[in-house]
């Protein structure tokens, strides 16, 4: 267990150090998020009330689109340098590797969200939030679940042709329950008096996270098993 934790820590440190030196995922992901929100500026949501209605959807769709960019890159890096095949030779690496990639993906996505959320708030002139800790909890849960599936699927598709196109195609239909819960919870937080309690949706998000964390941990082992031989 201690050894696994140390391996996990070393891998996270390595991934974050590479990112800190190049900053390529953060720059491209962050800029992509800003460009996306700018695009939504031109989607014709003029009316204040309509803007407030559309904002949660815009936020979560932007997170989903930016997320696939991040998940693809974190694996691509290891593939390019052929580091992945080397890593996979270490016995018992699957668990720590999955946890490390998941941690990196969650952290990177959270940093990008720190830029994305204010951008959406400014663009859609939102002012009132029911509970800030609530919004953060919803964002964290959504990001964790999304990154869980994204990590295992990016690992699975890493050695395939056209992986950049395939990843969103397989990932988006699977995360619909999570995105829907995120949108509804955010909506309830932005409109405290309108409909439903946001905590209702947190239950769905927790269920999603629990189920897919367990499944992803098991399937990750199978997914990376093929190494680069395929």
């Amino acid at each position, binding site marked *: 267990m201690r050894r696994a934790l140390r391996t996990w820590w070393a891998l996270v440190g390595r991934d974050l150090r590479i990112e800190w030196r190049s900053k390529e995922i953060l720059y491209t992901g962050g800029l992509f998020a800003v460009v996306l929100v700018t695009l939504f500026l031109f989607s014709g949501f003029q009316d204040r009330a309509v803007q407030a209605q559309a904002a949660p959807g815009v936020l979560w769709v932007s997170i989903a689109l930016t997320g696939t960019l991040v998940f693809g890159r974190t694996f691509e890096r290891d593939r390019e340098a052929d580091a992945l095949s080397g890593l996979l030779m270490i016995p018992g690496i699957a668990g720590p590797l999955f946890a490390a990639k998941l941690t990196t993906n969650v952290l990177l996505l959270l940093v990008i969200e720190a830029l994305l959320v204010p951008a959406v708030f400014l663009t859609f002139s939102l002012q009132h939030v029911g509970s800030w800790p609530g919004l953060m909890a919803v964002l964290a849960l959504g990001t964790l679940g999304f990154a869980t599936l994204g990590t295992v699927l990016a690992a699975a*598709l890493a050695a395939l042709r056209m992986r950049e196109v*395939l990843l969103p195609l397989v990932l988006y239909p699977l995360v619909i329950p999570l995105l829907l819960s995120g949108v509804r919870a955010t909506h309830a937080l932005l409109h405290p008096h309108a409909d439903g309690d946001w905590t*209702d949706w947190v239950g*769905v998000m927790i269920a999603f996270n629990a189920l897919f964390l367990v499944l992803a941990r098991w399937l990750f082992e199978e997914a990376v098993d*093929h190494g680069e*031989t*395929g």
Partner: protein
Amino acid sequence: MQAWKTLERPAPWLVGLAGLTGVAVWVALGLVFFYAPSERTMGVVQKIFYLHVPSAIMAYAGFFLCCGASVVYLLRPSPKADVIARAGAEVGVLFCTVVLVTGPLWARKAWGTWWTGEPRLLLTLIMALIFVAYLLVRAVGGRREMTRKVCAVLAILGVADIPLVRLSVERWRGAHPQVISGEGAGISPEMQVALTASFVAWGLLFALFLVLRIRLGFGQEAVEEGYRLVQAREHAWEATLEKRA
């Protein structure tokens, strides 16, 4: 070699299954159009129901079969489990397409709109998307060990998603009353007979497609195996030639 031989001449039981399916489909169609009464408000459009409901059940049967075979494949990899998983997904997508085409046709007449956000509609659409993506990954990845594993992972994640999609979508749209469902009130005994016949016919059709697709898959595996053998021999032959030279 065994698998290759089975492709040459269909087994008697397979011919029997095909014949039985043909008869069952015609009997079911006859019952649907000439025996079951037309529904009062929807008229003849309601007959879609006999095609729509069994197709939906068969689509999910295909997806669950695909998931089950994928679990078996991951626990004990064999081309057989993979072929079954693939067949389940393909036949499932086929029936799911029937559901997604007949659904809107019926909804237009019954509810006055092509599409609504009704939970079951959304669930079926999402499942169709997941398994079409599954087939796409298969098409891109080819018949390699790696693709098989990736697809097994996808199938398991896809079926695990079903309860969550249902839960979230129902919560979003509110618990809807049963639209017309096979059980319970609102359906006459004649309609019940026609529906049962449709279920039998569609179940047989599902089984037939599945068996044919599995046989085809075994055949493909056998051809691939033979090709590998030939290649290996060629390699060996070239090596000998080089040695002599």
